[in-house]
Structures are given as C-alpha cells and as structure tokens.
C-alpha cells in the first residue's frame, strides 16, 4: 500500500485517469466525489488547514505514475468542497483554500465535549493553550488553525457557552467556559 507520510493512499491513486479532469458528466461526478473525500481524509490525517494553489500539495501528484492534477482540476475539486461547506476560499483570486475537515460547528461541539470531559468549566484557558497546551495534546485540538479555533469559540460565545476576553499579553486571548 502506498503512503504519503502517515497517510494510506487508496489503490485508485495509481489510476492515471484519476489525475485527468473527466469531460463526461457522470464520470466527472464520480471523480469529483472521490477527490473531495480524499482531500478531506488527507487533511484530517495530516492536520492540514490550508491548501495553497501556488505551492505543491503532495496529494495532487503521483510521481510513481508521473501524473499530476492540472490547475483547472485543483480548482474544480476545491470549489466542490467549498460548495459543500467543507472549505472556504481565503482570497478573491482563489489561490488559498481553507479546509474544514471538521466544520466550525463540529469544532464548537468538539471543544465543548472536551471541556466537559476534562472538567474545565469555570476555568480559564488561553487560546494558545487550547492550540498547543498540555491538556489538548493527543486530541484533534492540538495544532488547530488559529482562525478556525477563534470562529468556533465565537460560535460558542454566541450560544452563551463561553466568554472570550483579552488576556494578559497583547497577543493572546483567554476563554472562560460555562457549564
């Protein structure tokens, strides 16, 4: 089985037509579906939140069969993710794409569950703690993109489950969760 880092690649990754944008509608739909799933799976596995089209993304080429996706194909597949609400374009030129392998809502739920399971209500954590602190090691929260985290926290704030406030240092913010 081929691997890309820790990630197991599916067999069809070696199928050359997989890397050519298919013109026939039905075939294209199938191809797009497979790519959407693969991008999300890979991003989740590698904790990737941002795909830049100006840089090489390892998933988009397969050196063993000497094939890579064209720029057009990359845009098609990422746009499909955007339509599904699983990704967002960060710029007008569609060069950078935020990958939401977990939706913001899902992140909010995850954070809340984490807080409950670790009895962290009424405690205060800095945002940076959540991202890289001891408590979150081994969880999905470790290494989460800061922008994504803030949006999830803001969602919780709107629901009254958390309060965000400016912290002691100029850069950081703190969060207080309520039960």
């Amino acid at each position, binding site marked *: 089985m081929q691997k890309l880092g820790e990630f197991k690649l599916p*067999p069809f990754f070696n*199928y*050359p*037509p997989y890397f050519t944008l298919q*013109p026939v509608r039905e*075939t294209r739909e*199938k191809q797009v579906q*497979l790519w959407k799933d693969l991008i999300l799976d890979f991003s989740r596995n590698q904790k990737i939140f941002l795909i830049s089209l100006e840089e090489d993304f390892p998933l988009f080429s397969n050196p063993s069969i000497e*094939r890579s996706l064209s720029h057009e194909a990359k845009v098609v597949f990422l746009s499909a993710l955007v339509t599904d609400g699983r990704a967002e374009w960060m710029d007008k030129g569609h060069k950078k794409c935020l990958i939401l392998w977990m939706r913001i809502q899902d992140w909010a739920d995850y954070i809340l569950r984490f807080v409950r399971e670790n009895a962290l209500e009424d405690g205060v954590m800095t945002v940076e703690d959540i991202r890289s602190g001891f408590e979150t090691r081994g969880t999905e929260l470790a290494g989460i993109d800061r922008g994504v985290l803030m949006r999830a926290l803001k969602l919780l704030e709107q629901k009254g489950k958390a309060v965000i406030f400016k912290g002691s240092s100029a850069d950081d913010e703190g969060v207080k969760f309520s039960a």
Partner: protein
Amino acid sequence: MTSIPRLPTASLTTSCRPVFFSGEVERYLLPGVDLESDGSDRPTLLLPFQSSLLVITSHRLVFVDEASSSAREIALSAIIHAFPLKKSMSIRSMFASPRVRLQVSISNDGTISEKGTKSSVITLVMRGKNTDPDVFYGKFMEVLRSREWELTASADQGSTGLEGSSSASGVNDLRITMPVVGVSGILRKEQEIWESTDKNLQDAFQDLNALMSKAKEMVQLAEKMRQKLLTTGSNSQGSSNDEEMGSKQDMQDWLLSVGIASPVTKETAGALYHQQLSRQLADFVKTPLEKAGGMITLVDVYCLFNRARGTELISPEDLLQACALWEKFDVPVMMRKFDSGVKVIQNKSHSDDEVFARISSLAQKPDALRKGVSPSDAAFTLGIAPALAKEHLLSAESRGLLCRDVSAEGLRFYINLFNEIDSANIYTIKSHGLLNAWHLATTVSG
C-alpha cells in the same frame, strides 16, 4: 399488329440505377414517361407501371420504376424509325402531353427486339412537368444516329476474326459489307477499320459535344496507338515519342482508375441530377466501405468518387446533398456526424454496440490496463483509420465505457474504473471484477 408488344426486363442495382453493360454509357434522363401501343381510341399501356424514369443510354432505352425497383428496356437497335414530332396547333394538342412515336421491330413471341420479323408502332408519352419535347427529341435522335451499339459489336467481331460479312443488326445496318476473301480481303478490312478510325477522329475533334460522347472510343484509340508505337519503330522516333507516350500513359492511368463509365452529369440528368447522383454514389461507395471495415470519412469518399469519375467532378456541396438525399431512398448506406463534427459514411447495418464491445475488450487486456489505449493502438487492433478510431474511442468515453488520460504522452483511454470504486470502501478491492484485474495487472509490473 396482332398482340401487344412486350418489353424485356432490365436489371437494376440496389440503388435503382440501371446495370450498364461494358461500353454502355448513360446519355440522358427524362422523368414522367409512359409507353403506349399506338392507334385506336384506347391505347394500351406497355409498361406495368406508370410515370417511369426514362434512361437513354448509348445502347438502350431503360424505363425505371423506383417505387417497385423494377425496369424494362428497349434496345436502340430494335428501333427501326423515330417519327418526327408533330407540330400541331390545335388547342387539344397544346394541353396534351408531348408524344414521340417509334417504329420498333418485334420478334415472333411479341417481344420488342432487333432482328424481329414484324414491326409495331409505339408511343412515348412525356408527362413530366418541365419536359421540352424538342430538346428530348434532339438528344434522342443524336444517340440513335451515333449507333454506338454497333461500334461495340463490330469491335468484338474485329478482334475475333476475319470471317464472314455479318453485321451487327440486319434491318438497321446501312454499311455496305463486301465478302472477305483472301489477302485482299484482309487488307480491305484493315483499310475499312483505318478509314472509320480516321473519320472518328475528325468527328470527335470538330464537335466538343461529340468528343464527350466519344470519350470511350478515344480511350480505346489511345490504347491502340500506344501499342503500335511501342512495338513498331520506337527506336527511330527518339525522345519526343516518350513524351507523347508519357502523357498517354498518364491519361490511361487516370482513366484506368475509372470505375464509372457513365458519370451522372448535370447534362444527362438535368433536374434529376442530385437524385441520380445520390443513387450512383450509394452504389459506388459499397466496395470502399467493405475494404475500410464499414465506415469511411466523407473526405475520403469525396476523393475516391471524384477520382473514379475522372471528368465531371462533383463539388463538396454536391456530395453533401447527395448523401442527405439517402434518407429519402431505400439505400443500404447512411451519413453520420460525430460530436466532434467529423462526418462519415457507414453501412446501415453497422452496429455501434459491436464496436464498443471490441473496444471494451481491447481496453481490458493487461497491456491496456497498464498503459491505456491510444487512437493508433485502437486503429491497429480494430483495423480502421486512426481518425475513425479516435471517434470511436470518444464515443465510448461519452458512453461511460472509457476514461481519458492526458499526459506528456498525449491522449490515451483506459477502461472506466470509476464505476467500480465503492466510495464507502475505497481501500478494499473485491476479489473478482474489473478493479481487481486492473490492480493485478498494474502491481505485478511494479
């Protein structure tokens, strides 16, 4: 006139064109013709169909009924006399259909044929809408006067021997033949042949119209002269003759590729030009279609057809119109346009599914699973032209049988595996099936 004269049947091709004899050339077409026996108040119809298409050839009158795909004929040699057109000014004659009366020779059993012992008068009635009787009569008399059937007959006789004084048709033959005896007889015969040849040349070059009708004879003449030059005195003549012979050779080669001795021209067919052209094309295209495996591009047909016609080339528009007319007739061929715009001619019996089955099985061979199929691979395996192979591959792709792969090596096609992949189980491969076959073929080679 005791019994109603009968006409022998004539054979037609599958596109309802008359089957021509060797040396027979088409001269004129006239639609809407009936044939009646003459005299009395109630004329009898001589043809089992009405309003037929009259095809005048150098040898016969052929009456074609497209509806029943049948035809009847009258040999020109059986026509004793054509009465001049009546120029009557009566009101009745102005509205009546023009008529031409012919005296024909009848054999004992009542069939119209040459060398009959009896004769009868029959009437050709022209019921076609835009028929000009004078033009028709003029052309008809021209053909009758040129007596080409005799030329073919005497050419046959000349080659087989010098015996007897037989002539092609007893009643009509106006030539004086003398008994051929001994050496002087042989010499006289030779002389006669050369004189008639000389006259032929003169006639031909005086009148361009006549030249067209003498085209066949000119080819034969050219051949004979070439043979003569090659065998006698070629050494003394020098290089100038090589040039002559070279151009004659060219002409001969060019005319040799003729498969059609009677090109349908606007002159012979007039308003029926496109219809007759369409039918002739349907006949012509059969052999090349077979050789090419059932499908040819329109461009190739254009080249082949025009080359076979030799002169009187048709334009691309004519070809397109001729193919479009096929829908109206019952012919075994059809024109088809692919999505890419490429137009082809194919047999009606051609089956797309059969081609797809062959492509599909080609794409599943181990080599194809590893490297895909290129248009030239497909052309080679299927035995068809590369342009057509590409069309077939593209059609198979749009049917979902194949997928494309674009790379530095160009466009290739693989069997479509997307349908075999289960989105919920992308890491598992079922032990039987296409995906497994592909996996085995590609992992074994590494």
